[in-house]
């Protein structure tokens, strides 16, 4: 179980490439034994951050501490850290057993002990007989496991994973997610995992940091990021959302009333502390699954935001089914998740439905961009 002691601590890390700041004053700590993910779009600086932890890049300023010791000036081969590379970087000129034994040989572990440790490591990743095989004889998932065994056999303080599941096909990726999480639970090593795939981060992690443009937007449990995003970027990046830009008309301590740029009035709750002044620009996010769908208008009377419209498209995908509804007043499309009860199994395209959501389900963030003026309401009004 994760304890409060930190295995990794980053203090004010800055890294620039020319005029471009790849990592901009990032500080965080990762408790021992936890699975920590850094989630962000490509180019957000997550790979740069990981390479600084591994020692392949130096930070311009700031310090990285592993198990309390500063890593400044320590080369990668003397850090208690191992890395799973994006394309795994297994050595094709060696057998599976030689790959796993590579690190132990560098530490001058006695031969008999190497054999025992390699066998135990391969056993742990469920590949007990793969030792004499060549790397190109393995399947994608087996390669993953060998790469993990090659690192874990060295018992690192910290295992860094650089999007290792990216090259796998979807089914195997789903399977490896579960397997990685279980393995991490079993061995108790601290994992730092970087990915642009939110589902990987949410499923596996104890803590997720959402990174954007070199900064951490929010660090928290997956549930916190999902249900309580602190910034507009997190709300938009983690999970699906309906998104509107608008302008505050009135605000009190319970919520705000805003009008979108297409003239749709919405009641929303500010996601951050502090008040939003009337007239300021806002972005409003509503998750498709928090929208209540009804054929009968009376059933959505309890929520603050009520709309109606015709079903544009049915995106049926079992448990993840959505419909796109065209709002009758503004003509904007709203994505609504279909409830799992089968109540709407006979829904057809073109049918008129009523839908709505509560004030608390509409998260409202201030925008830095100038507030758009409301367009004149469409002919439907």
């Amino acid at each position, binding site marked *: 179980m994760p304890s409060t002691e930190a295995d990794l601590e980053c203090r004010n890390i800055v890294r620039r490439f020319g005029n471009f700041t790849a990592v901009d004053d990032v500080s965080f700590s990762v408790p021992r034994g936890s699975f920590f993910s850094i989630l962000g779009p490509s180019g957000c600086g997550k790979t740069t951050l990981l390479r600084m932890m*591994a*020692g*392949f890049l130096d930070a311009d300023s700031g310090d990285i501490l592993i198990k309390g010791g500063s890593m400044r000036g320590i*080369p*990668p*081969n*003397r850090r208690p*850290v*191992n*890395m799973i*590379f*994006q*394309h795994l*970087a297994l*050595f*094709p*000129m*060696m057998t599976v057993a030689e790959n796993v034994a*590579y*690190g132990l040989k*560098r*530490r001058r572990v006695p031969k008999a002990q190497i054999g025992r440790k390699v066998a135990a490591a391969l056993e742990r990743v469920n590949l007990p007989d793969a030792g004499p095989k060549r790397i190109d004889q393995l399947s994608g998932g087996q390669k993953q496991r060998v790469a993990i065994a*090659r*690192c874990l056999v*060295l018992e690192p303080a910290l295992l860094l994973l650089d999007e290792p599941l990216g090259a796998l096909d979807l089914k195997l990726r789903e399977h490896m997610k579960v397997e990685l999480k279980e393995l991490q639970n079993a061995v108790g090593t601290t994992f730092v995992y970087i990915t642009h795939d939110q589902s990987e981060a949410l499923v596996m992690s104890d803590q997720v940091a959402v990174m954007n443009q070199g900064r951490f937007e929010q660090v928290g449990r997956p549930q916190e990021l999902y249900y309580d995003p602190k910034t507009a970027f997190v709300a938009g990046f983690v999970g699906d959302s309906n998104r509107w830009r608008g302008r505050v008309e009135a605000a009190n301590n319970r919520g705000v009333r805003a009008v979108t740029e297409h003239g749709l009035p919405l009641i929303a709750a500010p996601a951050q502390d502090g008040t939003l002044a009337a007239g300021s620009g806002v972005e409003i996010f509503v998750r498709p699954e928090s929208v209540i769908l009804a054929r009968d208008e009376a059933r959505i009377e309890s929520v603050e935001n009520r709309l109606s419209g015709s079903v544009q498209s049915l995106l049926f995908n079992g448990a993840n089914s959505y419909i796109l509804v065209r709002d009758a007043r503004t003509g904007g499309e709203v994505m609504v998740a279909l409830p799992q009860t089968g109540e709407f199994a006979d829904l057809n395209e073109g049918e008129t439905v009523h839908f709505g959501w509560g004030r608390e389900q509409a998260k409202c963030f201030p925008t830095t961009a100038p507030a758009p003026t409301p367009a004149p309401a469409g002919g439907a009004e």
Partner: protein
Amino acid sequence: MFPHHGTGADPRAGRRGRVMRLPQGMKLGFFLLLAPLALWLCLLVILPHIDVLLISLRVKIAPRQYATGLGNYAEFFTEPLYWNTFARTAVMSILATALTLLIAFPVSYYIAKVLRGKMKNLLFLLCLIPFWVSELVRTFGWMILLRETGIVSNLLQWTGLADGPVEMLYNDAAIMVGLVYTSMLFMVVPLVTTLDSLDDSLIEAGYDLGGNGFTVLREIVVPHAMPGIVSGCIIVFMLTLGNYLTPTLIGGKDSLWFTEQIYSQFITRFNWELGSAFGLLLLILSSVIVWSGLKLSRQTFSETMG
């Protein structure tokens, strides 16, 4: 007409007939494409070698009288000068190949793995530029540098490091310099190609798992580059063993290179029989050394060239 096809009323039968003739057309094309190579091999490689073999088996018993026998080969083994030259050429060629590899490897690694973009192409081009002039001119360049009245000798006298003119030509070290210089490109090209194909993350993984520069080189870089190393070595060894110009010009009369022996048998002594025997012996020697080199490095010929 269509023995495998029962239904004669098939409307596609006419088209099938044309399709069936296609393999024959492909055969003709295949032989036409093969013809230049086959002609080249037969006329310029196989026939001359058969001729050389036949000449080498002729033993002169009287003017214009020949008998078939192994006398020319016997002469090679009984005359110490011949097989001494032979052994010396082999050893010097192996040494030159090793030196070329030692110098070319860091250069190639730097070009393939350290440099990026423009500088990479520029440095590669710099390796190529000396080969735009003929080997003769390049060798004369070294002679201008190394001879008694040459640039190096004058420089040493000017700085006071030497009292009188220094002759640096006509010794084994000078021959070695010339041979290594001549061979560099043929080692650099295959090495850069194989090192280029080495994924950087393999090197990083080598360090990440605790390796230092030396172990990463030994365990990862060299095994990966092995096909390039072996093919480079084969090319350089063959070129060096068969080199005539560089040893003769830089080494002078006493260079004792086996190709010189062959030349003097053919041209000076007009002893084509012995010269042919020497030629075949050189061919056997190079084949044996290349074969044992492949065995030692556990590479196969097809792997290296593929």
